[in-house]
Every structure is written in C-alpha cells, then in structure tokens.
C-alpha cells in the first residue's frame, strides 16, 4: 500500500522523535557529528570557510541559547556582522559588485569597491543604533509609527539625489550617494521589524535587534526569521526542544541536498533555458513547440527548486542556532489554490509582503467594502510589493542604465506581478466567498493542473533576466500555443 510505504518512510526519517537521537545530539560528540554533517551539507553552496563559520556560529548560538542568553546574543551579533563585513570585503555579497559596476560605468578604477563597500556596511551599525535611539525617545514620531514607509521614502529620496548628482557631473558625491543606497537597500526589509518591536515592547534591547539585521544564516534581502518577536516565538524553550530543533535543522539541510540532486538531474535534460528559447525564437530559428514547452516547464522547476534549496539551507542553519522556524518553502506542489501557492512557495518573502503591504492597506483602505478591501490589499502585496522588492534588489541598474531604461527593462516583471496579483487576489476573493477547491484525488489533480499551469505560463515573464522585452515574451508565449 502506498500509504503504508509513505508512513514507513516518514517514521524512518523522523529522527527527532527518537529518544536515542535526541539524547545523542545533546552530547559533545553529538554536537560534533551535527557540525560535521551540517558542514558537509552546506559546503557546496556557501564555500568551505563560510559554511564552517556559519555552522560553528549556529552551534555556538544553540549551545548558549538556554544557559547564557546574553552570550547567545553576542554570538549572533558577532556572526551576523562578522559575516556581512567579511562577505562584503571578500566580494561574496553583492554590495561591492554593484559599486564596482557603477565605478566601471563612470570609467573609474574598481580597486577600492570592496573597501568602500565594507566601510559603508560598517557605518550601518552606528546609524542603526541612532535610529533605534530615536524610536525609543520618540515612539510617536512618523518613523516609529510607519517605519517601512519612512525608510522607503528615505531610499527613494536618496536614489533621486544620487541620480541628480550623477547627471550634474558631481561624481564623487554621486558615488557616495549610490553607495549609501546599495548598502541600505537590504536593510529596508529588516529594520522595520526592529522598529515595530522596539516601539511595541520595552523589554528588547537594541543589541538584540542589531544581532539579527541580515542574520548570518541568511545574509539576503529577505528576512528569513523576520524580526525578534517572530524569532522569540520559535526559540527552543528547553534542552529537549533544542535537540529536536537541531535535528529538524539537520534534516532540512540534508533535504536541500536531495533537492539539489534533483535540480542537477534536471540540468541533464537537453532543453534550452527559457532565455535561450526566446533568443532562438527572436532569431527566426524557434525551437519546436514541444521543446519550447519543455524548456518552460524545466526552467520553472529549476527556479522553484532553487528557491526551496536556499530557503532550506537558511532555515536549517537557523534551527541549529535554536530557532524552530517554519520552513521557507512548504510542499508548493500540493497547493490547492493560487493563494495557497503564494503562501507555500516562498513563505518569508510572502511574509514581508503581508507585513509591509497587505496589512497596512487592509487596515486603512476600502474598509466599508469587504470584498474590494480584500482584493485590493492582496493586489498591493502580491503586485506592488513584489515588484518593488525586485526593482530595489537591482537598484544599481538605476545608476548604470538610468531610471527610464531601468524601468523599461523591468516591464516584463511588472506585467508578471500584475497578472500574478490579479490571480492571487481573485483566488483570495473566491475563498472569502466560501468557494473551496474540489476535494478527492480528482479535485487535487485539477487544483495542481490549474495552479501550476498558471505558474509555468507566467514564468515566461519572470525568469529573472532583463534581456527580453514584454512584447518579445508575449510573442514567444503565443508561439508556444501555435500562434505566430
């Protein structure tokens, strides 16, 4: 019976429910074994030294989370800021790359890009402390009440000023301005959580928040683990909970490797990536419809696996540090509706869209029109928020391409966001009207086909490249339906 096999597999893999495993990982040998396994599981993705430091820091944080909370915060702080400063200096984070691109565009030497970027990142520390101090002393100020909006306005003004300086030939000032933008942009998605928490609760210290600004387990633009309030909710409460959390972290790291093996298998399928298929179409030598659809399906699968692999690595390391965080990607193939897909596919990205876009919109706009209110707030989150996050992630293109060209090359992703947000908004609306997806095996297959057909088709517009315009992509998609 398949169900029995599935149960057997589930039970075999449920090492966190076995007392012997839970006891073993609490011993020094168990911690060493966990460290070695985690290092093996992360080495290929992070590089040996980064993986070793990340794993050692997370196990040290885990070892102190119950008995020495202050030391725990200090370890998080050191690992977080150490890794972001070292990563910037050594070029494994993108800030220095963005600055180098700008310097090259201005025909200047790029030798100092890493050093300047590292200094810029180091300055985030005192400036963040200044912000926290302002929030505590003036909890009713605009920045304390509307942190995301305030910081977003700051970013926009900074971009505008930098661009004006650049176009007026004040290159050094423009470089300083753009460097500030590049350094600040990732923190735009972290700082509001800290500000909200500092304003709402008196018991958190600035160092607690500083320690998790782009935490060492995920130095990206998405806050995996959100802010301190969220982390506290998932913090291991006792030795057994910590052991279970760490075992679940190890499992997630290993699962990321299984998914990566699957992704590498997909690489063996002899189909072009979607960009190449569009190029072939534009050059007048299109691939066949079957190959075109295969390319689209395989590209979507690779992209989804990539998101899941990185999410599992980040959350796996955070769990080793003692935080039993929900997974970043949770069985997206089982999505019953588009709303469900949005919730499952990239959980922490969806969370910033909900926290910074959906909730403020929902609480303020169209309060007397429940259906419109729900649709509009969902649209703002999945459409506007999604587009804004992706545009700002590549904000350096505003400096090198100019704002008009940066927006023009983004039109395909804007189109993607509009269609996705409409789909998710309608899906949310249907659910709120009590229209549920059909039950049973046939119903599940139907849901799978509807959701994933939508996702696959939309992937034509969201493959991450800015090389093809919206018109070219629409024509390519039409060609897959035999329309030329």
């Amino acid at each position: 019976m398949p169900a029995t096999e599935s149960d057997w597999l589930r039970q075999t893999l449920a090492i966190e429910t076995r007392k012997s495993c839970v006891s073993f990982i609490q011993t020094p040998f168990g911690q060493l074994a966990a460290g070695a396994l985690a290092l093996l599981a992360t080495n290929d993705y992070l590089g040996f030294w980064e993986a070793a430091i990340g794993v050692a820091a997370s196990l040290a944080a885990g070892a102190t989370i119950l008995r020495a909370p202050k030391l725990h915060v200090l370890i998080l702080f050191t690992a977080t800021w150490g890794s972001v400063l070292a990563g910037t200096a050594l070029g494994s984070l993108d800030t220095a790359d963005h600055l180098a691109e700008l310097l090259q565009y201005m025909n200047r030497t790029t030798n100092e890009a890493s050093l300047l970027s590292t200094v810029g990142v180091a300055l985030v520390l005192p400036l963040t402390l200044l912000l926290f101090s302002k929030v505590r002393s003036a909890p009713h100020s605009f920045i304390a009440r509307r942190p995301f909006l305030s910081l977003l306005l700051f970013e926009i003004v900074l971009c505008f000023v930098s661009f004006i300086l650049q176009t007026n030939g004040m290159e050094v000032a423009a470089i300083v301005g753009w460097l500030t933008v590049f350094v600040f942009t990732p923190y735009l998605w972290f700082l509001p959580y800290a500000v909200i928490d500092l304003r709402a609760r008196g018991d958190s210290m600035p160092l607690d928040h500083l320690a998790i600004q782009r935490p060492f387990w995920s130095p990206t633009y998405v806050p995996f683990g959100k802010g301190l309030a969220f982390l506290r909710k998932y913090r291991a409460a006792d030795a057994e909970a910590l052991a279970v959390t760490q075992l679940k972290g190890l499992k997630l790291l290993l699962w990321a490797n299984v998914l990566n093996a699957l992704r590498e298998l997909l690489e063996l399928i002899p189909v072009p990536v979607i960009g190449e298929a569009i190029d072939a179409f534009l050059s007048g030598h299109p691939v066949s419809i079957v190959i075109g659809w295969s390319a689209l399906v395989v590209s979507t699968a690779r992209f989804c696996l990539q998101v899941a692999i990185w999410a599992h690595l980040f959350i796996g390391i955070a769990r080793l540090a003692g935080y039993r965080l929900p997974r970043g990607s949770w069985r997206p193939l089982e999505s019953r509706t588009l709303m469900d897909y949005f919730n499952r596919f990239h959980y922490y990205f969806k969370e910033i869209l909900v926290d910074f876009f959906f909730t403020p919109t929902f609480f303020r706009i169209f309060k007397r029109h429940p259906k419109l209110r729900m649709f509009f707030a969902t649209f703002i989150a999945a459409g506007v928020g999604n587009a804004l996050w992706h545009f700002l992630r590549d904000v350096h293109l505003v400096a090198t391409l100019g704002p008009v060209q940066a927006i023009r090359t983004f039109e395909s992703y804007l189109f993607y966001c509009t269609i996705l947000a409409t789909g998710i908004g309608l899906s949310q609306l249907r659910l709120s009207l009590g229209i549920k997806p059909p039950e049973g095996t046939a119903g599940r297959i139907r849901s799978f086909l509807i959701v994933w057909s939508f996702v696959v088709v939309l992937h034509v517009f969201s493959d991450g490249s800015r090389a093809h315009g919206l018109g070219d992509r629409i024509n390519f998609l039409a060609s897959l339906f035999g329309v030329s």
Partner: protein
Amino acid sequence: MITRARLELRAFISETLEKRGDLKPFADDESLFLSGRLDSLTMMNFVMFLEKTYGVDFDTIYFEVAVVDTVEAILALIQPR
C-alpha cells in the same frame, strides 16, 4: 459587557471552526491562528468582525497575530481603555 463579548466571540469562532470541519472544543486561552487551527484568510474575516462589532481600529494599534490569537487576547483588545 465582557461576558456578552466572550459569548459572542466564542460563537463566531465556533461557527468559523465548524465551517472548516473542526468540531473540537477550544479553551479561551487556546491559540487559534498561531497553532494553525485558523488561517490568515479567517483572520482577516475575524478582523472585520471585530471592527464592525466592537469598533476596534486596527490602524491605531500594533498588529500582530498574537493580538487576536486567543479569546482572552481579543477580550483584552476590545476592553474599553
């Protein structure tokens, strides 16, 4: 007032849970959303119910799931301050 509100809240939550096929009882201090018994969509319907019935203005408070996660938390929220 609180007793009546408690009864109204419990009735609304019971009805919502029943619609989802969840017939298990719930205590006043039991987590509804963080535990996964109710989802985010239900939370927004719940928010609209609290706005309409008790005049709660969520725009003026620091909103997180915890403020509506249990009957006790909601009662604290709607109590006149």
